[in-house]
């Protein structure tokens, strides 16, 4: 095997997750390679030209590309090897098969960090029915068309799903002279960030119709419109069906971690990403995961914190410095949709960082962590949406068994 193709740590994906992981891995003294399929680093941030990145991590409001640039600069000060325009097409054990203009080859790693981000749910993912004309896109596709290619896909748009990308695109399209007729959300509350609903929809007088969905798409060559109906649970009430004329339907109905490359990865059914321990290590020993490929994040700052953890621990693993002793479980209790990680080790001294999402909106409640019968953490919350990811940090000295994260009243 070519010596040049052997690394302590190989990081797959050069978005914010991959960059942070690679930098930390290098800081731990590991020989590190970062692989990115696009011609530049930054991942999804490159198409997010709006503000709102880095408020926590940098205490500043940056655009997506600006946030990415900070890490590109940090990375350039390290000796991390970076391969651009290079696709990882297979991961087999700790062997990573790559393909680029020079050909196909295998890179051998002692540890791998998965940082491939996510993909968008497609019309098939929500069983959208009717015809299949031009003019039906996912929000990320439209974001790429507008922000990267400088093209408008429609002038009268309906947005299905109130995920953040959809909300951001509602504002963006309005700025570019398109009309966003309405945003439809099947759930009784929006999954998007509060600030996005205010700034993107309310400020532009775009109606958000909760408990509504598209029942069918109309139009042969081009989309001519959609039928919209109120729902009862998830079932459309057909008597409320109304035709809305439009030339573009934009889907913002969810993101799916891009885990397909890795075989035999144990997944968390709630997140669609890997099930990990506190090191962000998957069931496959030596394979770590962070960012949107682990679970979909709404704030890039959280991606960065999580990825630094994964990068550090991947390096420690590669250098033989990681111990896995005295495991304990972390489980989602009452009011919690999922927690990540799902288990930790008492032998590890670092604080335990838990990310989680709520099952639904809460007001005036406590978020607590119980260890056995003891409540070892509690925080009062005035109000929090299900759409916003939560994060808590627990000192290891307080842990002597399995943990449950839960919501309780007074």
């Amino acid at each position: 095997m070519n010596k040049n193709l052997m690394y302590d740590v190989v990081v797959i994906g050069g978005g914010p997750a991959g960059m942070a992981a690679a930098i930390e891995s290098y800081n731990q003294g590991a020989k590190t390679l970062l692989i990115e399929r696009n011609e530049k680093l930054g991942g999804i941030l490159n198409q997010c030209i709006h503000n709102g990145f880095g408020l926590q991590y940098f205490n500043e409001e940056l655009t997506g590309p600006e946030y990415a640039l900070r890490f590109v600069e940090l990375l350039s000060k390290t000796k991390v090897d970076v391969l651009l325009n290079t696709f990882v097409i297979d991961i087999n054990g700790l062997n990573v098969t790559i393909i680029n203009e020079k050909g196909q080859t295998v890179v051998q790693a002692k540890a791998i960090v998965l940082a491939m981000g996510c993909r968008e749910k497609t019309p098939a993912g929500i069983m959208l029915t009717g015809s299949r004309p031009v003019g039906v896109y996912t929000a990320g596709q439209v974001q790429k068309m507008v922000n990267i290619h400088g093209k408008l896909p429609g002038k009268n748009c309906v947005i299905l799903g109130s995920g953040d990308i959809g909300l951001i695109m509602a504002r963006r399209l309005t700025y570019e002279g398109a009309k966003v007729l309405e945003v439809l959300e099947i759930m009784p509350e929006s999954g998007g960030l509060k600030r996005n609903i205010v700034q993107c929809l309310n400020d532009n007088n775009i109606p958000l119709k909760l408990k509504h969905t598209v029942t069918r798409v109309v139009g042969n060559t081009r989309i001519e419109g959609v039928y919209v109906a109120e729902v009862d649970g998830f079932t459309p009430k057909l008597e409320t069906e109304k035709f809305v004329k439009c030339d573009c339907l934009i889907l913002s109905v969810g993101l799916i971690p891009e885990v397909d490359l890795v075989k035999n990865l144990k997944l968390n059914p709630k997140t669609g990403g890997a099930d990990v321990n506190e090191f962000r290590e998957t069931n496959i020993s030596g394979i770590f995961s962070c960012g949107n490929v682990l679970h979909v994040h709404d704030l890039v700052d959280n991606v960065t914190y999580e990825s630094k953890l994964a990068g550090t621990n991947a390096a420690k693993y590669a250098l033989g410095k990681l111990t896995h002793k005295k495991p304990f479980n972390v489980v989602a209790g009452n009011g919690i949709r999922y927690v990540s990680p799902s288990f930790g080790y008492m032998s590890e001294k670092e604080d335990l960082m838990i990310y989680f999402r709520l099952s639904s909106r809460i007001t005036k409640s406590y978020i607590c962590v119980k260890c056995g019968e003891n409540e070892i953490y509690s925080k009062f919350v005035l109000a929090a949406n299900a759409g916003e990811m939560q994060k808590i940090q627990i000192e290891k000295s307080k842990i002597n068994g399995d943990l449950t994260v839960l919501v309780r009243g007074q």
Partner: protein
Amino acid sequence: MNYDVAIIGGGIVGCAILNKLTRKNLKVVLIEKGNDVAVGASKANSSIIHAGFDCKPNTLKAKFNVRGNELTFKLAKELSVPIKQCGALVVGNDLNMVNELFNRGKANGVKGLHILNREQLLTKVPKLNENITCGLFAETSGITSAYLLTIALAEEAVINGAEVKFNTKIKKCVKNDFGYNLIADNLNINAKYVINSAGASYNEVAKILGTEQHEIEFRRGEYFLLDSNIEPLTNLTIFPLPSKFSKGVLITPTVHGQTIVGPTSYESDNTTITTVDGLNEIKEKAVNIIKDIPFNKNIRNFSGVRTICGDDFIVEKSTKKQNIINLAGICSPGLTAAPAIAEYVAENLLGFNNADKKMKKRVPYTCLHDLNEAERNKLIKRNPDYGKIICKCECVSLGEIKEALNSPLKPNSVDAIKRRVRAGMGRCQGGFCLTKVIKTISENLNISEDEVVKENKGSNFYVSNINPKK
């Protein structure tokens, strides 16, 4: 321009005839209203090469199916189109009906039929529903890609002298000394013979030609297409026992490693929509064959429309107009039957009994996905474009897309590229590659990105530029 034969409609039937008549050394032109071949029923079906056991004996369907099965496997290999004789099962719990199918098959001359009990069925498909007790196994059934086969038939014909006119609709047909003068907005030609293979639009074309009208009924079939990364359900095609209207909701692997579940059979108009009822019906019926089907791994719903004229195909010489051939009601098993229909039209109806000429071979598309590491490296060394991946799900390179753009039919739409090299066919459905494919088409055909279309005329993706000053 003068031609021996003009064919109207470029589905599998029109293209099989184009190919056959080119082999007979005739000057042939195909006239298609769409922007590519295989844009009608031939792009949305189950792509099964049926064995022929369920057609009523002594019908054209039975005759052309059994002959077509044999010809299709031969043709697909010659044309380097993916095809697999994986066999098919018809399963249920009515042994009488299984016996009847077996006997019908025998009467139709189908070889390789076997009646199996549950134990024997389980060795072929371990996941069969527990209610299934018996079935018929047909060795000669197989799977292909209907649109790739259609494209390949047309490509080989074009390489050997045939012509194809896209975006062309004949408006007038006048008898003249040569034969017929056919006039469209963008075309004015003469042909000695005219063939109506316009599928669902048979009557519309017949009206212009002045030939027989036939009573046509449409039945739509909807589908699920499941991701290639699911745990395989079956490696052969499985049908339920057939009903009066259709062969039922089947489960089959595709030649590209995905799984198809469907179709329904609803009376409909000629539009390829999908419906909530239709998709739910598929879910309900398919579990009678295999219980746990991961419908959450659905990557595409689609539908196709069957054109039906009574109980049989209509393959006839017009009695109203000399030297015009009517092809109507070519529903299932029309894909399988197409080469046999073409042979019959060329040799029996038109009387060209001369031996087929030797054809220049078509070059199959490079498929990076199917190559091993050494082959890929050789290819990328020759042309680095093959190392630039554009479609992540199906692993399609820039080199392959450029190759398709330069292929014999000169396709120019995103869907035409998708059919040829599979860019956008995978689980993200073009979420990742669509804008890149649009850009590649624009750069290589020297047209603006605004002019790039999804499929037919008018299906442009972009409506305007973003004001750069904003």
